[in-house]
């Protein structure tokens, strides 16, 4: 709880530079996916992979999650998993609405 106990956990500044550079590279690569007009499964998987890597780096290093205790990590990172339910429900709902619209309005 003391300010001093926080200071010892500070990661070396070189690590920040590495992550900074890595985020630049990953952003450039996801931009190139669009620039070269990749399509289909390759495009989606690359976009999602670069997105996940960038998000992971930001949360783990820049937001110091990698140096936190498990109690905090689980309290913050587990609840968003519930969103998978929302996304699943909305995806099937949207597909259904799309089918109905294609059937009745076209």
């Amino acid at each position: 709880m003391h300010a001093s106990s926080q200071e010892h956990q500070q990661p070396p500044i070189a690590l920040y530079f590495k992550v900074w550079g890595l985020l630049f590279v990953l952003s450039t690569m996801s931009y190139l996916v669009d620039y070269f007009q990749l399509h289909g499964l390759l495009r989606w998987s690359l976009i999602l992979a670069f997105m996940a890597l960038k998000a992971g780096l930001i949360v783990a290093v820049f937001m110091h999650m990698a140096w936190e205790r498990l109690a905090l990590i689980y309290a913050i990172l587990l609840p968003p998993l519930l969103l998978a339910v929302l996304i699943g429900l909305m995806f099937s709902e949207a597909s259904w609405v799309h089918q109905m619209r294609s059937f009745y309005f076209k």
Partner: protein
Amino acid sequence: MTASSTTGSSAPGWRGLVEDWAADQQAFQVPWGKAMMWIFLLSDTFVFSCFLTGYMAVRNSTTVPWPNPSEVFSLQIAGQPVPLLLIAIMTFVLISSSGTMAMAVNCAYRRQRGAAAALMLATALLGATFVGMQAFEWTKLIHEGVRPWANPMGAAQFGACFFMITGFHGLHVSAGVIYLAVVARRVQQGRYEHGPGGPNYQIVEIAGLYWHFVDLVWVFIFALFYLW
């Protein structure tokens, strides 16, 4: 931090209620401000996820073709359209601001007040640049006839998603710029040198959490809205 009793208080009425809720057992071994910021960011995660899920729902359910973001957000450079150029620059600006913010937190814990304040101001300036470019982008699209209810390029839901998602994110960036500017000024004035428990620069890390979250949300918007 000093008044944390683990057994609670027997005070009656409102005072007792406040003490029971404020001085309960401690689950997180971090300063309360940091825990609260994380919980706020968790709630914000759900807000932005609802926006992005809503965007997915309307995009998947419309039978009208979705406008191609690669073309909508291209800029003319020497007569040639470059896809997503402004968005790419915005992305790099925001990532750089995250980098300077991480350095500011590091400097603050080393008690290098001047460097920490300067880096925070640099972060705020990069954030303001980002908002400026977003304003430019909004102006361009509005001139091209994009509205929340209609647009000349395709599915009407495109405008609603665009203005809602980027507008809410831009609002977060703007709030972060003000927040960082205020904290940077206080750091420079030395306000955090003389706390009750000695120098305490946790506020810089807490402000940094908010700022990195803004960058984190942009990672998802960039991938799911602009690149998809």
